[in-house]
């Protein structure tokens, strides 16, 4: 084979390598030269038919061509890869503000989120978490809580009744769990009971017929109003993350005596805002010392033991925390509301 023909093959191959636009071009070249039935194979195949003296040179030349083409291919491939990486690294058209696809999300209801936080907070202070039925007996909801039959305080409870005899009702507060707890546990104990409660009230922005409360109950030896104040301040520190000034004023609930309303210094303002109705105090939780009649109804001797109870309005706290202006959102099941808490 004339050497100039070999050089021609090599030059053509090199030419095509340098002008190659992509792997397809190189692969075509590779097929043409190096694969079975290609130019190199063809050259090698012809060697046996050459005169013996020419054979070594022809063999060397063919192998030389193969090496050189391979080298040109390797080099071209490296060049193309580098170019491709370079192209990718140039990041042409990149737009950091291009909107990302909407992530799929889910969320716990804000009432659940707050309930869990409070359960954990109380749990860290030795409180158990208890549960009680939503459909309750008059006995648990009223009678054992020192609401005698015909007591006018019953009228303040806006009760849903479940039977004509009014023995069964939708619990109006989480307080019946107090009685259930006292009958089941032996003192001393501390417990909270979150759950839904019901009032026969026409719903509006600030009233719902179904809402959430968390009852708290502490029974022990020589528990005093001072302990109640201490426990409530600890609770508020946990909820608001800082020291909150509180004040206790008389409040009437048949199942506690003395009974209080606990006001907290409004955490949202210094000198009056819409939340505190310009008073700088917000009415936060009713509480009091467990009435001896309730202890007795729960099978606990009021001369031996006493305690305090409190009721946290979970719905109200959630509304305060997130600035929700209409309580009816809470049970609406509306995704426009629920999606905001993921």
């Amino acid at each position: 084979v004339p050497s100039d023909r070999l050089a021609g093959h090599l030059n053509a191959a090199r030419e095509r390598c340098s002008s190659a636009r992509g792997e397809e071009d190189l692969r075509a070249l590779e097929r043409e030269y190096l694969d079975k039935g290609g130019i190199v194979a063809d050259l090698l195949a012809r060697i046996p038919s050459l005169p013996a003296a020419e054979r070594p040179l022809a063999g060397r030349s063919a192998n030389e061509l193969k090496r050189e083409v391979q080298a040109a291919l390797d080099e071209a491939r490296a060049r193309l890869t580098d170019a491709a990486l370079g192209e990718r690294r140039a990041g042409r058209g990149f737009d950091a503000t291009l909107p990302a696809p909407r992530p799929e999300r889910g969320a716990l209801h804000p009432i659940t989120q707050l309930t869990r936080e409070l359960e954990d907070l109380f749990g860290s202070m030795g409180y158990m978490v208890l549960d009680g039925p939503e459909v309750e007996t008059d006995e648990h909801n009223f009678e054992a809580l020192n609401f005698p039959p015909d007591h006018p305080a019953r009228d303040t409870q806006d009760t849903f009744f479940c039977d004509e005899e009014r023995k069964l009702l939708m619990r109006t507060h989480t307080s019946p769990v107090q009685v259930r707890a006292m009958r089941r546990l032996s003192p001393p104990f501390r417990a909270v009971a979150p759950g839904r409660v019901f009032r026969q009230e026409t719903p509006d922005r600030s009233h719902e017929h179904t809402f959430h409360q968390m009852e708290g109950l502490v029974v022990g030896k020589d528990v005093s109003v001072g302990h109640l104040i201490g426990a409530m301040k600890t609770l508020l520190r946990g909820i608001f993350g800082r020291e909150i000034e509180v004040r206790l004023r008389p409040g009437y609930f048949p199942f506690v005596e003395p009974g209080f309303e606990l006001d907290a210094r409004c955490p949202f303002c210094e000198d009056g805002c819409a939340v505190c109705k310009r008073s700088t105090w917000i009415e936060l939780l009713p509480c009091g010392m467990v009435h001896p009649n309730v202890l007795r109804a729960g099978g606990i001797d009021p001369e031996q033991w006493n305690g305090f109870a409190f009721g946290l309005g979970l719905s109200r706290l959630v509304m305060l925390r997130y600035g929700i202006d209409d309580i009816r959102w809470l049970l609406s099941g509306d995704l426009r509301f629920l999606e905001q808490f993921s």
Partner: protein
Amino acid sequence: MFISYRWLGRHVDLDGISPEQVAEDLTLSTAEVEGLERFCPVLAEVIVGYVQTREPHPNAEKLSVCTVDVGDAQALQIVCGAGNVTAGQKVAVARVGTRLPGDVKLKKTKIRGLESQGMICSERELALGDEHDGIWVLAAEAEVGRPVDQALAAEDWVIEIDNKSITHRPDLWGQRGFAAELAAIYRRELKPLDVSLPSPTGSASYPVRIDSTACPRYLALAIDGVRVERSPDWLRMLLIACGQRPIDLLVDVSNFVMLDLGQPNHLFDRTRLSPEGIVVRMARAGEGMKTLDEVERKLEPTDLLICSGDEPVALAGVMGGEASKVSPETSELLLEVANFEAGVVRKTAACIGLRTDASARFEKSLDPTLVPVAAAGVLSLLQEIQPGVTLAAAPTDVGAWSDPSCSVQLRPERVRRVLGAAISDAEIADSLTRLGFGVEPGPAGLSVRVPSIRATRDVTREHDLIEEVGRLWRYDNIPEQALVAAIAPAPPDARRALVRRIGDRLAQAAHYHEALGYSFVAEDLARKLGVADEPHVQVTNPVLEGWQRVRRSIPVSLLGLLEGNLRRRDEVRLFEIGKAYLPEGGGLEPREVHELGIVLASRRAAQPPWDQSAFLRLKSVVVDLLEHVSRPPAHWEREPDGQRAAWAHPVCRARVGVAAPEDAVQWVGSVCELDPLVARALAVDADVAVACLSIDGLLAASTERRRFRAVPRYPGVKVDVALALPQDVSAARGEQAIAKAGKGLVAGTELFDLYTGEAVGSGRKSMAWHVILQSDARTLTDKDAQKFLDRLQRLAVELGGELRKE
């Protein structure tokens, strides 16, 4: 309930104590103050004017033109439309610039060509009442040029008390009760009341007979010489301040004494009563009467009646009767002041749905010793205003009442222990004395005499006295204390932990939103879901018509949320963990079930690929949840027909269970497609699947235990197999065949294609799986794979199908 700062001043000297201070101290020691407002603030803006002249308006027949002296150099010319305006009257004048109720600013105007430099006001224009017969004519003594409130001594502040905070305090349903509190708080004297009665002009007393124990005391006074007229302004102002509309002197005096002392009373026109006298008795079945609101009432045998002879003339403690009410001609009265049993009055008021100022007070349990005090109050006020009023007969005061005042033993040590405050014995005694209790040394420490006005219900035990000491001492003065007690840590609560794990998994891993639905199921929803015939706990007084049912399963609440959400979203994923109630059981209390409901509704694709159907996507969530909370693998099968929920698809339903002891399966719930008919009724146009799982079932199946499984040491072989099978051969049977063909080497299968169509023939389907073959002992080869395929081909034929060749 409203209290008037000025009115309080009739009972206790509040000199130097501002209304704001009073409100603050009542808040901290007595009751919940809901508001403090200046009484009728416009009265400070309008001034007393003297009508010097009144001429007819030259251009309008019904108008007059007045010159009104308002104390300035120049008298005002005012055009007035009222018919009762005359020269020589003292009137309330709003000058130009005065802001009247309703936020109207008075401007200088021309009325029919004549300038009017102000307005002579009616009571209605000042928001004092709805009187619009003409202008408000003031007392002749009113000083010209002064603001009306000062001139009439009517400057006042109104404190609103939350009624709920005084349901236990009958004494606080009158102004005097609050005055007594303030006297105690400020250590001032509570002015004594004059309870003496004038000597009667006649001797015989009015006949009264009590035939029921529900009336412990009845006092009747026959009063002569009254004239029905307008009450003096001071009396009207105090009533208006406390929210009571003035009517005429008789009604106003009766109301005034009720609001003052908290003791309701009633005035009859004596000439309209029978000479047989008053009989107090229970109503008879079938009896009826017309009350003074002109409503014919049907009476129950539980209602207590005041009768004249045998004719009912009042519903005791609730409302008087039409026939005997005072009229403008009345001059002879019978005053009733009585004590009725709280429960009886409450029941009657509740039964007829008529809660009056009187019934609200009686149901708090009133002190029977208040009866003569209130009677003296009514008579002396009438005499003060109309000196010609006389007592016509000796008072009748009958009834088996007893003085409720009592003695309670108080241990000062107990006071200190319960309050957690270092209050000395002397301070305790001082607090109680200021509140009107009698304190003497007693066997346990102090013996406390409870005055009758506090003893009917509120203060009867030691605990009640501790509250009295505490609130006067001020709870704010009690130092905060840390709770110290040996309390064992709360035992682990498996159910609560499980509920949390489920919620977290669904919200965070599966991207579902937790909804809290109403416990009430609307009738309309119940009908659409087909559950209306199922027994429900039902409330007898729903908040809305049709909202009486209490849910018996959680998915019902979630299904009700689909339509609204799908109007705004193309996919809805919701869950709720909650309680539902089943009334069938016979006992008083229904059976409570804790359930997890999950719903997925999607219309993202008109025809989702087979593995993106709502059913399979939701099943995948449930599979993940079960693997998350429980180790044993779940069992799935077609749900038996007997267990179908009314809203579930008739066919496309699955139930899921977990392995229980002795190869049994414990069923924990179901995943169903929604019945297309129900979807249509709900106006839900989406692919919908619903899951319902029992929390108790999951709790029984759940385990915290997880064990590490060794990672395979030898590489596995991945084989893709496709089986053509008859339609009714389940995927589970296909997978059983694969497992069997693998002879223990199948480490995992994954269905990646499901196809029905011409290529496999009618009544047949093709299912394709990725299968991983793996051995713990050696590296598997193609030969193992081939043996597996050969065996699978034979098993496929046994199932009536074949192994498809690619």
